[in-house]
């Protein structure tokens, strides 16, 4: 299921921990989605002197966090901002399709930490924000009935199997409009 590189980072995650005197902190995800990551950064000059993370999530989420931390240390802030979730997945030798949007949010968490640092630099005691909807969420969604990717921009029609999809009001899962939710059985309205 997972590449050797993913399993290596999962088994021996690099840079796990909390930086008590972090210059920036970023959080991404929520437990409903399955994964949550917190990144801590220490900045020296224009470079990331240290990066640590904590992750609640599956094997992919832990490996992604570890990989991002390894890629980021020593980079300039600008270089670190250029790390994308796609590049991280590539570095890991690929991730299973269904993990791409859910677990691959390490770069987002790193960017949030850098943004938090920049906010602090300009003098605002910025609270640590949690980004619940990460970049590329819509692009990476898949139809729960046929697993085809669902088009970007909140489109709620699966063109592959011709099903009207909505987010279940009860559990947030993607399901067919007007039928009991595929995931929790709750009644849903016609879109």
């Amino acid at each position, binding site marked *: 299921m997972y590449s050797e590189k993913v399993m290596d980072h999962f088994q021996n995650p690099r840079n796990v921990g909390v930086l008590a005197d972090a210059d920036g902190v970023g959080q991404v995800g929520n437990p409903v989605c399955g994964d*949550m990551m917190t990144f801590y950064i220490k900045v020296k000059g224009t470079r990331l002197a240290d990066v640590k993370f*904590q992750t609640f999530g599956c094997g992919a989420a832990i490996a992604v966090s570890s990989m991002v931390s390894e890629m980021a240390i020593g980079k300039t802030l600008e270089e670190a901002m250029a790390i994308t979730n796609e590049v991280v997945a590539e570095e890991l030798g690929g991730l299973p399709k269904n993990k791409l949007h*859910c677990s691959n949010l390490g770069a987002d968490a790193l960017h949030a930490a850098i943004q938090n640092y920049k906010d602090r630099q300009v003098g605002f005691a910025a609270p640590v924000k949690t980004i619940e909807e990460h970049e590329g969420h819509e692009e990476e969604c898949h139809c*729960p009935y046929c697993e085809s990717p669902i088009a970007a921009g909140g489109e709620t029609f699966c063109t592959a199997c011709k099903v009207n999809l909505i987010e279940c009001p009860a559990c947030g899962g993607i399901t067919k409009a007007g039928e009991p939710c*595929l995931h929790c059985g709750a009644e849903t309205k016609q879109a």
Partner: protein
Amino acid sequence: MRRRYFDHIAATPVHADVLAALLPFVRETFGNPQSLHSDGQAALMAVDEAREKVAALLGSKPDEVIFTSSGSESNNFALKGLAQAQQARGKHLVVSAVEHPSVLNAAKSLERQGFRTTVVPVDRFGRVDPADVEKALMPETSLVSVMLANSEVGTIEPVAEIARVCRARKVLIHTDAVAAAGAIPIDVKALDVDALSLAANPFYGPRGAAALYVRKGVRILPLIEGGLQEGGRRAGSEDVPAIVGLGKAAELAGERLEARRAEAVALRDRLLAELPRRVERVVVTGHPTERLPYHASFCVEFIEGEAMLLHLDMQGISVSSGSACTSKSLKASHVLLAMGLDHALAQGSVVFSLIEGTPAEDVDAVLDAFPPIIARLRKMSPLWTKYLQEKK
């Protein structure tokens, strides 16, 4: 490294006696039971004998047993076949929120044909309240389906009481006994159900072998139409080796049910009691006592199931999880959510289901190996850090 297998609910090995019983029907006695010649008749005898054995396990008559190919087929057959046969009475079904997807999705398929479904809730132990079923019944209700035991949390449902409610209102009741058959005693007369699904693999029979009990006199429409096999209720040439295997497995399960149960309960109870004692913030899911003998399930707070599963796997221990990350749909188990667990807690789902002959030392190995894995994953969890800060 010797593997320690705790995933009964996913698959069990075929019992040696079952394999020995079915093998001659692969090549030697290979005839088609529908053939009139001796080769066919020998196969027919074996099928009839298997039917008697399954009937004996259930306390039914042999001709009330219809062979199918899987528990999912049996469930689809029961829901669609019974609901469609009862259309004149009405088009309303009642199912529980914790049913197997083969029941829930069959009900959804019927909805596309104009049926309506009421999903009754469960309590925090995963139990259906018969009073809720009674409330859900309407004049046009034709079928109720509530499982006998749930494979994800092990909870045994009060099916006999629900059947009484249905009987009083003259509504048919089906129960999915795939997780329960062979593990707890089943008597269809005492349960008073009209239909019951079972599959061979959970009690050490081959996969691809299953059955649906349908009470004599209850009309059911075939799911698979064609020839007159299985009394015209399920077409397709009989899979004789699978059926013979199911029969033998049913016979063995019936003979050794009590002994096997006592053994499994002791190990199960050790897991259920010890793990939460050794590790803080670990909760047992499902009912503490009304549960399958081989089944121990938990939610570990602050960490995620797939990560636990992978670490246990690396130490030679096979388990399953109902976490979103371990499912193809990436949604947390509908069973855990129906029991009122929040998403974060449901993510920490881990299920240990014992197979026959699981040595006591394997349970000890789990109790030794698992707490350090939990500690390791918690150390990297932001939720655990938050919990520790709040505790201070």
